[in-house]
């Protein structure tokens, strides 16, 4: 048993740190640090820097443009990126890439992977539908073969960043008679094809990241089918696995703790400051200790992976505990602001452009992040579903 990283890994860590200090644009970092969403153009600006460095796709094999990092290096890099408040990698890198690499045709790989690396295409994920949220087997969007095209009809829901996307990877039903999980195919849709309509869904945080996507007689060339017809479920499950990486969000939570301490030291309460409140401090301490346990669990599971064990359940545990800690911290952040948690930035209202200058500078983004963060226990498999998964595997 040994907690220390090797000299080589520590040198790597320093290299990542240096890169981030030198190349991560300050404006993008500051938006991330506040918990604001980074706009599409800013994201692409950053991705081009990343790609220049060759670090766009650490999770891809080297032959397709991956970094060739070891498991440990991937862990270290992800931690450093998060600590530096860099934007998270997007769907093309994290989700589509691995599926194409595993199941795509040579032509698909040759066409799409480089475009992802160069940020030529922004991808969105077309999975959820009304009536098929946590339960994807019930999806209804139909794709009917017509010559060398599929004609797609249906509706996708909760489609993050569809309004920025050039392309969508999408689950569609190709065999309506097959049972639940069978009969689903994985296809790639150009978002500029006629018949696609995107309607924004405004979140509780008044922000726009989610969309409904309506597909009406959308003609998709058959070469955009990934792998075999009716095998889409297999590929999607493979993806869901990938999605669960780095779910603990330890570095992000550390950042929230640091922010909380700054705010609590500034907020006056009577003669002292909020940080002097024993009750507030105790609740923060309790979360800090929980965060330690989470971080060490992540390391312990990484060690298992390094020893060749398959990781499955562990991701669910990290996701549940990680999201609960984040919500706890965000709740404390809101509480720390006192009355200044009530004013709420809101891009749909006719407000002064310098509106955000109300209240202390550090309040920026906190409530938005809190509201957005409530979704952390819902999206990507609600915590209830995660507990079901754990129960099924551990209690069977």
């Amino acid at each position, binding site marked *: 048993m040994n907690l220390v990283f090797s000299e080589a890994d520590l040198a790597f860590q320093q290299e990542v740190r240096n890169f981030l200090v030198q190349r991560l644009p300050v404006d993008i970092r500051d938006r991330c640090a506040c918990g604001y969403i980074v706009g599409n153009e800013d994201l692409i600006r950053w991705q081009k820097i990343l790609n220049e460095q060759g670090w766009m796709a650490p999770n891809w094999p080297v032959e397709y443009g991956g970094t060739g990092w070891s498991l440990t290096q991937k862990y270290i890099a992800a931690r450093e990126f998060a600590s530096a408040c860099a934007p998270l990698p997007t769907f093309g890198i994290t989700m589509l890439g691995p599926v194409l690499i595993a199941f795509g045709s040579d032509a698909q790989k040759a066409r799409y992977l480089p475009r992802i690396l160069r940020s030529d295409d922004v991808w969105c994920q077309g999975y959820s539908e009304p009536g098929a*949220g946590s339960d994807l087997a019930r999806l209804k969007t139909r794709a009917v073969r017509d010559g060398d095209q599929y004609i797609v009809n249906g509706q996708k829901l909760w489609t993050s960043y569809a309004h920025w996307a050039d392309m969508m990877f999408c689950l569609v039903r190709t065999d309506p008679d097959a049972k639940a999980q069978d009969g689903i195919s994985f296809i790639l849709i150009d978002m500029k094809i006629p018949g696609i309509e995107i309607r924004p*869904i405004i979140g509780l945080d008044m922000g726009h990241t*989610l969309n409904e996507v309506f597909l009406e007689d959308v003609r998709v060339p058959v070469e955009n089918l990934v792998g075999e017809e009716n095998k889409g479920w297999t590929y999607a499950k493979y993806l869901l696995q990938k999605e669960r990486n780095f779910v603990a969000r330890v570095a992000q939570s550390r950042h929230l703790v640091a922010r909380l301490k700054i705010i609590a030291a500034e907020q006056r309460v009577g003669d002292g400051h909020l940080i002097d409140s024993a009750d507030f401090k105790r609740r923060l301490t309790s979360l800090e200790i929980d965060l330690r346990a989470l971080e060490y669990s992540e390391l312990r599971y990484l060690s298992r992976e390094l020893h060749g064990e398959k990781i499955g359940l562990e991701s669910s545990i990290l996701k549940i505990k990680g999201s609960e800690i984040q919500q706890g911290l965000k709740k404390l952040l809101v*509480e720390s602001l006192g*009355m*200044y*948690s*009530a*004013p709420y930035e*809101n891009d749909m209202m006719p407000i002064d452009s310098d509106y955000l200058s109300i209240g202390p500078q550090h309040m920026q983004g906190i409530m938005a992040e809190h509201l957005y963060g409530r979704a952390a226990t819902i999206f990507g498999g609600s915590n209830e579903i995660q507990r079901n998964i754990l129960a099924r595997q551990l209690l069977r």
Partner: protein
Amino acid sequence: MDFELSEEQRLLRDSIDRFVKSEYPFSTRQEIIFSTLGYSEKNWKLFAEMGWLALPFDAQYGGFDGSPVETAIVMEALGRGLVLEPYLSTVVMGGGLLAAVASHDQKERLIPQIVAGELTLAVAYLEPQSRFDPADVETSAKSTADGFVLSGHKCVVYQGCTADKIIVSARTHGADRSREGISLFILDQDLQGVSRKDYKTLDGQWASDFFFSDVNLPASALLGQKGVALEAIESALDLVISAVCAEAVGAMAAANDITRDYIRVREQFGVPIGSFQVLQHRWVDMYMEAEMAKSMSDVLAMRLRDRDEDSALMVAATKVRVGKAGLVVGQGATQLHGGVGMTNEYAVGHYYKRLMTIDILFGNQDYHCSRYEQLEIVA
């Protein structure tokens, strides 16, 4: 010992329930929220006609001599519909302050205007450094030959930009945070030296920060006596807390009903999600929290009406208990709705946001727990 409503009280509640049902479906509320005022003047006139604006005031000023119990009945019913009209700031808080400190002449002039729906008020009693403490007043009002000069910064004044007049607490003497030397002034929006920054709040209402820069006030702007307003502010806050807790109770009941109806019909894995035991128990926990909140709110209103010696402890305890219950209900309601609960287009999230706001307004759980502990030591 009786928690049931009298015949009159039931009629009052039913009339507001009817108003909410017909005038406040969620779609209408969404329109009202995006209107310039953020509430409906037509509705406000209706409130006046129905006599709801007159409820808590003395009969001699055109009121109906209602008690905190009647206010709680109104607020609970309004809470079910997340009603946006400024009843709390104008009638309960502004009106409560006038009733507590204003001179007979001032009352005779102002209260009938409130009752008629012709005067809306906002109360500016907090400052950036004060957190929730009404005694922490740095805004100053210095005496001049014919009045006062007001300077300072008041923060997060609900309805600050829509109200006809503002009631402002300021220090006429005494050290920062001293309980002595705080006075209340009533002023118009358009005085020289008053500036304002307006913004929407979490729960979709308007609020403002006020900046007073050597504002000349006539002597008549002083409400009641000079330097002794703190107790009146505190007792007005007691009434406001009772009212806002009742509002939360109404909002919790509605959020629980909406959630129950949703989980009965929403299907996943081929069955209604309400058939999953974990979701059932979570809803039961929300329901029980709402029950506890309702009991606290009812008792607080009665204690305040009866001027019971336990009132002060009960105000703090109720704000804590209702705040906690509101978060359990609000968070649970959004969580049980899944993705839908996270959108602005569906009612349940708005209940959550209002319940979250109520937990903060007039002192959060931490603040009132501390108050409870201090009061217990004194008692």
